[in-house]
């Protein structure tokens, strides 16, 4: 009633009369304020939400927490009953108000500012409590007027669970829709003296759906409030470039703010607000930082030589060197350089792939190749074969000195190059846990810088061997060749076996028992091939040929098994997905309807921001889950990310050309055709709206 009076007065352009006794609203002809409550009573010991409602005359506006270039946000000085305490205002996202060359961030017409209030536990049910305080605010049209008024709200103390307040609850529910929710996407920024460029990693958005994007900084200083914010939406997400603000140093810390995305929906648009903390991204690194990263990478590369997957490869290579210590210095040098080239080129290949994939928007890190069960399986085979060679199960090329000599003494420098490549490949699984910092830096850098860091890592790996070959004097420190070399080789097989065991464990996480079984079967084939290879060497020519063919067949067989490991379903995620959101199909819907089950159909797409927000604020809430469970509602998820034709048709049948679409099919009534039509829920959901709809079925 009182609000009605306010509105009538405002509509008539009359000055508001002084507050009558008992009227809840106070204020001025420009702004009237009142406190509203979400619940109709206070529950002892609980937090409840109230709201400061400002009704603002046309043309005037009040301010957001960051008022922009001028202005001041509203405040309340509370005088609360003993034991009560009020939290900070939860600020609904503002709108832009341009005033000449300046920009204000604020509210017009009406805004409800939600405030949490904590009630003490020792309240007596039936008593009445009055929350009062003094609200102050600045209201501007062209001129600005600071105003203040007493506000108060009286509520009864509830014995049980309080219900929603008939007028307050819908007002606060509406305010909540304008409250920013935590951003589902990480954000970063880069800064130059002229501009700040924000990147919100919202990948896979549909540019055509985004009508507008605006970043409201939480504080003055980092960006120019009034500057245009041209936004680009592509595979990487949303990029906004805006003129830099005046505060020096504002871009050396994270920039907080709210990003408001206006998404085009069927027959309208939805504004979605997210709180964002943009972290300073690496701009072109300073030369000092680059030098530091290169030195760290070099040291890390050296350390890699000691990793269990690399040490055997390297040791064997070094053993070859011991064997040939007396050889020509020039040939030695060339071997060293060939080995280094093998390492560096392999690192460049892996790093180049990584950087290219990242530039294309893939969310991958170093060690990404180990996310493929196929690669893991093949690496396990490789390590196993190397270990078998070290154990002496088979010998490549050489006669007595073992595989090490074979690799090192292979005619030409191809063998050395190959060893370098092998060391690099073997090193990659070990780099991930140890090289995180340097690699983390490298992937954030421009191409050339990133590659430089990776190559420093590779050079570190190659360095011990390279130096031994380049500086003949150092070779004096090598022990004399002897029988110990064979024992060492045999011993070095075990770190490789351990690496195989680790890779199989990794595979068990990725591909489940089937994947492990396939990989172990492949390992058996590799073992058989190794034995056969060695056994047939000493046989007649015919047998040796037959043996080699069999070995080749076994290896091909093992490799062919690899993809099988990859296709075995990973058990855990499949289980989780099946739990709640069953995939939609018209048949499944008809089936469930025939069984008499109520069904909720969620037509959504990965690139639909409103869908995402609805799922977060409403569909995945505990209260909604409880309501669904209580009524036995089955949720079917129709994923339109790839524009499935069947779903397009269904959208069309509801007069829609896009998502989101939410349908709630009631329990089919026996006797009536299962064609009873579903309730179509609004495109912007709230928890309450979903629960209300569910309660009606």
């Amino acid at each position, binding site marked *: 009633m009182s609000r009605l009076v306010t509105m009538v007065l405002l509509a008539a352009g009359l000055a508001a009369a002084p507050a009558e006794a008992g009227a809840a609203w106070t204020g001025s002809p420009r702004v009237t304020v009142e406190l509203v409550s979400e619940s109709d009573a206070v529950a002892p010991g609980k937090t409840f939400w109230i709201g400061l409602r400002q009704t603002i005359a046309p043309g005037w506006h009040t301010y957001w927490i960051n008022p922009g270039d001028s202005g001041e946000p509203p405040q309340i000085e509370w005088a609360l009953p003993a034991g009560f305490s009020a939290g900070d205002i939860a600020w609904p996202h503002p709108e832009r108000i341009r005033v000449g060359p300046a920009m204000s961030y604020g509210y017009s017409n009406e805004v409800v500012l939600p405030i949490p209030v904590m009630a003490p536990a020792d309240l007596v049910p039936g008593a009445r409590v009055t929350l009062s305080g003094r609200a102050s605010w600045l209201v501007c049209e062209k001129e600005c007027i600071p105003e203040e008024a007493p506000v108060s709200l009286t509520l009864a103390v509830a014995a049980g669970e309080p219900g929603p307040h008939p007028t307050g609850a819908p007002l606060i529910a509406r305010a909540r829709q304008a409250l920013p929710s935590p951003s589902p996407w990480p954000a970063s920024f880069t800064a130059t003296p*002229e501009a700040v460029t924000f990147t919100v990693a919202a990948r896979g958005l549909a540019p055509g759906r985004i009508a507008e994007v605006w970043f409201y900084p939480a504080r003055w200083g980092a960006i120019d409030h009034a*500057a245009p914010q041209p936004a680009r939406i592509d595979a990487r997400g949303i990029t906004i470039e805006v003129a830099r603000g005046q505060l020096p140093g504002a871009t050396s810390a994270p920039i907080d703010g709210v990003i408001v995305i206006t998404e085009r929906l069927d027959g309208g648009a939805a504004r979605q607000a997210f709180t964002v903390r943009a972290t300073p991204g690496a701009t072109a690194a300073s030369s000092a930082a680059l030098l530091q990263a290169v030195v760290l990478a070099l040291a890390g590369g050296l350390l890699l030589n000691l990793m269990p997957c690399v040490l055997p490869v390297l040791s064997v290579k070094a053993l070859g060197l011991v064997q040939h210590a007396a050889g020509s210095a020039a040939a030695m040098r060339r071997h060293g350089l060939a080995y280094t080239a093998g390492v560096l080129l392999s690192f460049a290949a892996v790093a180049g792939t990584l950087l290219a994939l990242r530039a294309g928007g893939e969310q991958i890190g170093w060690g990404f190749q180990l996310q493929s069960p196929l690669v893991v399986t093949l690496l396990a085979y490789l390590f196993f074969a190397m270990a078998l060679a070290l154990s002496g199960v088979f010998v490549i090329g050489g006669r007595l000195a073992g595989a090490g000599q074979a690799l090192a003494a292979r005619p030409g420098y191809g063998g050395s190059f190959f060893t370098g490549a092998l060391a690099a490949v073997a090193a990659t699984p070990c780099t991930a846990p140890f090289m995180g910092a340097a690699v*983390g830096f490298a992937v954030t850098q421009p191409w050339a810088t990133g590659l430089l860091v990776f190559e420093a890592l590779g050079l570190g790996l190659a360095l011990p061997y390279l130096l031994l070959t380049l500086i003949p004097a150092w070779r004096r420190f090598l022990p004399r060749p002897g029988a110990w070399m064979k024992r060492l080789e045999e011993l070095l097989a075990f770190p490789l076996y351990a690496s195989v065991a680790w890779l199989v464990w990794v595979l068990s996480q990725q591909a489940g028992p089937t994947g492990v079984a396939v990989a172990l079967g492949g390992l058996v084939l590799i073992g058989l091939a190794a034995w056969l290879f060695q056994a047939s060497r000493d046989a007649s020519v015919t047998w040796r040929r037959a043996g080699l063919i069999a070995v080749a067949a076994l290896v091909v067989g093992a490799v062919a098994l690899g993809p099988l490991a990859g296709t075995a379903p990973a058990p855990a995620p499949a289980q989780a997905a099946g739990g709640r959101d069953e995939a939609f199909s018209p048949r499944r819907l008809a089936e469930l309807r025939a069984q008499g089950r109520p069904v909720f159909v969620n037509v959504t797409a990965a690139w639909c921001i409103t869908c995402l927000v609805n799922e977060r604020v409403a569909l995945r809430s505990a209260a909604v889950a409880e309501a669904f469970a209580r009524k036995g509602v089955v949720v079917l998820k129709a994923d339109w990310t790839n524009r499935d034709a069947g779903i397009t048709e269904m959208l069309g049948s509801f007069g829609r050309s896009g998502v989101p679409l939410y349908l709630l099919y009631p329990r089919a009534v026996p006797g009536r055709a299962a064609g009873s039509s579903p309730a179509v829920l609004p495109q912007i959901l709230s928890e309450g709206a979903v629960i209300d709809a569910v309660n009606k079925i």
Partner: protein
Amino acid sequence: MSEPSLSRRAFLAATGLAAFAGPSLARSGVAWAAAAAKVGAAAPAFSSVATTGKTVSLADYAGKVVVLEWTNHECPYVKKHYETSNMQAIQKEATGQGVIWLTIISSAPNEQGYVSAGQADELTKTRGAVPTAVLFDPTGVVGKMYGATNTPHMYVIDKAGVLQYAGAIDDKPNTRKSDVPGAQNYVRAALASVAAGQPVKTPVTRAYGCTVKYA
């Protein structure tokens, strides 16, 4: 395999890189404020007509410390500092030490705060203000050059003509007069640093007040 926090950081940074390395957007969006006077750089030269009818130039005061004060006598934030005599007190202190104090009115004709020369002088007299001169900027050229968005909006220029401070008068961005005594006055602090030949500790702050009533 790698620490989640680490890969997350790398990821965040990488998205920043993507933005940096990607084709840059048109830089047409640089607003006037960014092109305005910059703290640490030479204060832009200007000339304006004073209430005396004479044209006053910043160059006239070469070798002296200059304070610029944007004002609008009807703005509640300006009133806060004049009705508590806070503004007059700093003016007295400053001009007493040979500082040039230029009060600038950028309100356009028919906008709030626009006054005639006579009215302006009357305001100075009745309020007990002691600026060196009160200047008119009805076209807003000077105000926009300095990026003045608020009244009051304060600037301090050192003897070498370098802008050393831009922003609020103090750290209490409200209209409560009771906050004046406890406030940290940025202008007073900047003047002290400039006089001592030291760098200003807080050289840029968010100005608070009413918007400047530009045309």
